């Protein structure tokens, strides 16, 4: 039987020629990632159960990324424990404040097309942007650390065929929100989303990571993009020169097939209480906001920061709005600094913070009751960024930047049009 990308990866990771959807298999991850939020607790719980050693420690990446710089006594102790336990357990890499795990392992060349990656963090599937099947296992990572293996039910796949090219002012975020409008939680559940089609060629690897990372928020197990020439060029730049293209086998079976014309899309915004509640930006034009945030594993990329800086150039953030910008990794931070992107953002009124997950889960820049924020982060559940009745809207960096200028949710295309006119 012909296999989807996910099946191909799981077959290899379980030492089999082929696997069928629905089968329960034992698979061995090639890469195992955990942030400091979880790592010391995992080691402690394993030791409480008499498990002292990791089966495959060199495959483990630990990243201090959720609270950077540390701003609590508990956090300081947690980081000290993380550093000590990373050394004791002999993990392959400890990244200490160098950025958010998912973009970090990609920019450091630690994940390859066809890799089976297991992560503690919810948004691990963003590694699908380079053709890896990356699955969040949360606390189950303890079993992987202990045994090197995990039970996996082989998932069915939903194919998303992308055609066309995004119009100016429309981004990968808008594309994935459009996909959410077509794939509900029932269809996504226990399934992998596979991105392909002629439109994929127009999307950069960081954009593909945005697509894959946000699929978890529609309820999918994971997501993966086809690996094409463009992806291989990107990988060569991060030191992986022997990767090969990866696609589903012709004639494989899909649970559903969705076709999206990227050229037909407009800016979209997720409204409370969940990312799948998607509206067009026009429908929210009167929505006031007091906070705006550009960052997170999904959007803290150099391209998104640059696009926001271009839009904000020569303009000032609305006096009633706090705009916070956080590059996703130290390398992006440095590039954005060297290219003057951070200077332009700051000039427009933005506050820049060092790479961290911070605001995405309410660990930094919390919201007071009744406040509203538009954000490029991943989720908008009630209470996620502080007060339970604060409202969180999710959109692209361009939509966030346009909204920060207006003090209410705004369509970036109008500003881009203004700029392009002489």
């Amino acid at each position, binding site marked *: 039987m012909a296999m989807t990308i996910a099946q191909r990866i799981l077959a290899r990771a379980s030492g089999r020629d082929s696997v069928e959807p629905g089968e*329960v298999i034992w698979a*061995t991850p*090639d890469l195992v990632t955990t942030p400091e*939020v979880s790592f010391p*607790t995992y080691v402690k*719980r*394993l030791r*409480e*159960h*008499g*498990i002292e050693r990791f*089966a*495959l420690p*060199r*495959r483990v990446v630990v990243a201090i990324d*959720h*609270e950077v710089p540390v701003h609590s006594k*508990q*956090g300081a102790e*947690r980081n000290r424990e993380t550093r000590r336990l990373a050394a004791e357990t002999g993990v392959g890499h400890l990244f200490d404040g160098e950025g958010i795990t998912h973009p970090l392992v990609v920019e450091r060349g630690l994940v390859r097309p066809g890799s089976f990656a297991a992560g503690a*963090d*919810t948004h691990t599937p963003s590694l699908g942007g380079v053709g890896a099947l990356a699955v*969040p*296992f*949360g*606390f*189950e990572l*303890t*079993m992987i650390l*202990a*045994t*090197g*293996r995990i039970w996996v039910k082989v998932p069915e796949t939903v194919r998303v065929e992308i055609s066309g090219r995004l119009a100016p002012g429309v981004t990968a975020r808008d594309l994935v929100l459009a996909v959410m409008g077509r794939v509900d*939680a*029932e269809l*996504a*559940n*226990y399934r992998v989303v596979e991105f392909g089609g002629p439109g994929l060629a127009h999307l950069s690897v960081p954009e593909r990571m945005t697509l894959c990372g946000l699929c*978890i*928020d529609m*309820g999918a*197990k994971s997501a993966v993009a086809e690996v094409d020439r463009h992806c291989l060029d990107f990988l060569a730049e991060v030191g992986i020169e022997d990767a090969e293209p990866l696609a589903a086998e012709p004639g494989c079976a899909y649970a559903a097939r969705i076709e999206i014309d990227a050229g037909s899309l407009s800016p979209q915004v997720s409204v409370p*209480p*969940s990312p799948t509640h998607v509206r067009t930006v026009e429908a929210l034009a009167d929505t006031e906001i007091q906070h705006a945030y550009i960052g997170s594993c999904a959007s803290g990329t150099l391209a998104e920061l640059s696009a926001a800086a271009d839009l904000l150039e020569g303009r000032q953030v609305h006096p009633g709005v706090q705009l916070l910008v956080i590059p996703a990794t130290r390398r992006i931070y440095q590039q954005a600094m060297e290219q003057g992107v951070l200077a332009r953002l700051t000039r427009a009124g933005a506050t820049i913070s060092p790479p961290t997950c911070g605001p995405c*889960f*309410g*660990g930094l820049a*919390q919201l007071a009751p009744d406040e509203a924020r538009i954000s490029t982060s991943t*989720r908008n*559940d*009630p*209470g*996620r960024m*502080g007060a*339970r009745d604060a409202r969180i809207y999710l959109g692209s960096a361009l939509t966030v930047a346009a909204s920060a200028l207006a003090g209410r949710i705004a369509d970036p295309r109008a500003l881009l049009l203004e700029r392009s006119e002489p």
Partner: protein
Amino acid sequence: MTESYRGRCWRFGDDLASDELIPPQHVFEYDPKILRRHLLAEVRPELSQQAQPGDMIVAGRNFAAGSNHSHPFLAMREMGLGLICASLSRGPFRLAVFMGIPLLVAGSEVVAALGDGDSLEVDFAAGRIADETTGQEHRVEPLSPFLLDIVSQGGGLAYARSLVEAGEIAHAES
């Protein structure tokens, strides 16, 4: 024994998010004795005080959606609660099993028939839910023997230890 539970039905609706079960500001907290105080604290404040071991959280579709956090299940385990829901996605399903929470995925029709405060007797291995308040008995798909085995051993960590002791671990190092 985790195969059957008897207790009160704590009824919730559809799309009860993980972040509502335990607000994510407590993501750094892993002590079950502290986490139990936060379980549904903003949605149903009396639950953490009044729930007894053997009680069931009974929820609608898409239970514990969103953040893939073990925290709600650590709290439920500490409190001895079981779970019946209409549906839940893969993340919370796996976590519930791994944390040793017995559960049944019962579908919307069965869940709709269970009222808040009803007295329930639940057999997870058989997939049987007896509602003593209404006198109705419901049959649903039971938890598979493989998964019930993990739950019965107290969850994935105890199960992992048995694998380690049996030498059933991956050895190939890259």
